[in-house]
């Protein structure tokens, strides 16, 4: 990994006298006794790396499966922080994390550290998008999808298919879930299956509008984790070639065959990787900042091109009458009027809570942290995730 412009916390695996339980010969015995994994499979898991994108409900569960199974490196990426509404289903977080508004990637990594000290765990507090995805997938064997929107998944699919890395998609809403292993060279990519920008999720249910129950989350995470173990321990012929959709409440499970890659597609078609990479870089060269409406959450994420000087902002915001919650990764400022909050990340992102109007969000950023216009240029594009 190159030096990142966002907070990263890395837990190296224990070594020498710290090995402790990690070295216990029985640690993975039940998994090794399972024929398809065996000693050889366990060794492969130990030398493998995975990226878990999003460490919310699905992501926390996926990360836990990978860490407990003894995957060598577990890299976590998440843009969000822990809130009380997460605790009902996001298995790695506790009340302290919500009280301190801890970034999810950090809180998850610390918990995982205590679960398995023999695994290298990386926590990246970052919004996974076209700018950041390349460095994150660099060097991993597999990407596990724990994101919460189609736009982010399309970014992952494009990047994974370009780099030849399998993407294990999973999604949940209410009591329903879906999962599929999307494998370059074997299956079509996500963009071919569900369409790109011509479709929209605006009218679709999300966890924030339709709710979600944790059994649905765990069901889907289990489907993803099983495929991950197969891929990582070398049982690749055993990979499921279907798209599963299920409802754990009405109880219904349906499997649909996945088609192969589409030759005309620049991602899953034959050998078009290099070209794809060039075009994506061009797409990336657009607006200097974007305001992204976070569906159903009454929040807008405003991204500035310039990182924030957090200490200076802390003084400014206090002077403006904001009530602050500060931890080493972010600062939450309750505004003195209007009931909105700004959650500032040092990498230049602001989550504006209490509005779903991008223009209002940008205006609040200008008023409280704008100061100079170079922090938040006028010509922002608006996109909906």
């Amino acid at each position, binding site marked *: 990994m190159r030096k990142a412009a966002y907070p990263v916390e890395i837990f190296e695996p224990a070594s020498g006298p710290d090995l402790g339980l990690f070295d216990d010969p029985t640690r993975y015995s039940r998994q090794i006794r399972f024929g398809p994994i065996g000693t050889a499979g366990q060794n492969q898991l130990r030398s493998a790396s995975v990226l878990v994108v*999003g460490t*919310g*409900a*699905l*992501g926390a569960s996926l990360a836990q499966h990978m860490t407990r199974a003894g995957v060598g490196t577990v890299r976590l990426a998440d843009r969000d922080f822990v809130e009380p509404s997460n605790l009902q289903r996001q298995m790695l977080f506790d009340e302290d994390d919500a009280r301190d508004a801890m970034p999810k990637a950090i809180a998850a990594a610390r918990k995982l550290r205590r679960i398995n000290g023999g695994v290298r765990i990386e926590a990246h507090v970052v919004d996974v998008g076209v700018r950041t995805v390349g460095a994150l997938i660099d060097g991993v064997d597999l990407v596990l*999808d*724990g*994101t*919460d*929107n*189609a736009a982010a*998944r399309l970014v992952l699919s494009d990047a994974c298919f370009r780099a030849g890395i399998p993407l294990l998609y*999973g*999604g*949940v*809403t209410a009591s*329903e*879930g*879906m999962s599929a292993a999307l494998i370059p060279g074997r299956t*079509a990519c996500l*963009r*071919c*299956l*569900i*369409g*790109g920008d*011509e*479709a*929209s*999720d605006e*009218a*679709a*249910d*999300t*966890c924030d509008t339709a709710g*979600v129950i944790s059994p649905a989350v765990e069901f889907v995470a289990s489907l993803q984790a099983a495929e991950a173990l197969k891929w990582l321990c070398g049982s690749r012929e055993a990979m499921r070639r279907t*798209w599963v*959709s299920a409802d754990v409440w009405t109880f219904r499970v*349906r499997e*649909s*065959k*996945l*088609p192969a890659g*589409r030759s*005309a597609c620049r991602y899953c078609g034959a050998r078009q990787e290099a070209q794809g990479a060039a075009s994506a870089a061009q797409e990336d060269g657009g607006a200097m900042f974007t305001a992204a409406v976070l569906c159903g959450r009454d929040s807008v994420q405003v991204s500035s091109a310039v990182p924030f000087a957090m200490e200076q902002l802390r003084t400014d915001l206090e002077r403006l009458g904001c009530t602050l919650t500060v931890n080493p990764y972010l600062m939450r400022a309750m505004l003195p009027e209007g009931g909105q909050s700004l959650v500032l990340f040092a990498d230049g992102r602001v989550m504006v809570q209490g509005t779903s109007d991008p223009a209002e969000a940008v205006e609040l950023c200008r008023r409280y942290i704008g100061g100079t216009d170079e922090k938040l240029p006028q010509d922002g594009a608006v996109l909906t995730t």
Partner: protein
Amino acid sequence: MAEHNNKFDFQLYVITGANYHPGRPLADVIEQTLIGGADVIQLRDKFSSEQEILEQARVLRELTRRYGVPLIINDYIDIAIMVDADGVHLGQEDLNLAVARRRLGPDRIIGISTHSLEQALAAQAGGADYIGVGPVYPTGTKPGRTAVTTSYVREAADHVKIPFVAIGGITLDNIDTVLEAGATRVCAVSAVVGADDPAAACRAFKARIAAHNGAAAKEKAKAEAEAEAGAAVTAHDLLEAQPAESDLAYLGVKINGKEQWTTAGTIEELIWQHSLEGRRLVVELDGEIVERDAWGRTSLREGSEVELVHFVGGG
């Protein structure tokens, strides 16, 4: 499909027609029909300005609310939204159903005028809450339109699953023929709003409909009891029973586990008919996912099984 489908039902549907009661205010005449038992009021006015129609809509909204009767606005979706009407009624030429549904949301009523079974089934598949079937007889409100006669009423009764209302030139003189053809809901314009006593006219219409529906319900119960003893009609029998003389390409397909008729030839058309265009979907045809790009060229066949599933995006 909208939840009120089960709740929205009626017997006598009254449409405004100010030219049939010159000198009498619209609100007075419509109030008389409400007193007489009209179950739905539709504001239709092809001549006034949009502003005038908005004014009328406001008056009728207040009036119908007092009587607890749904108000439907003909053609003007904006006006329906502005006055918080219960729904709209659209012709075949008007804005398409999918667009209207998007604007009105899932809960408002959308009715569609149809003049053939093909149009009826398309409206049904497209998510209409009810359809108009007509004109059954030649009518002054739709000059120049050929009457479809009661044979279309019979076809609709046999094949249409959503509520349908027979419309066009129906009077107390010919209503029995319409009811015998299978209509259980009737729409009247001139015979009610043009009557000297609209309340009495409504009562007379409702009495005839109720008498006929009562007799029909008894017969149906008897037939069902007999059928239960005999063999159940299978889905396949229903597919076989499609009208032989039809030159329309109806296909019997299974969509999300339910047998349906469709005139859609491709996956793309099917999605359009279900007002799902622009939504993020996963589409499966006979066990395999169909890529987004292939929807337009993937044909449906008789007996195709299609799953249309919203992409699940939470995490």
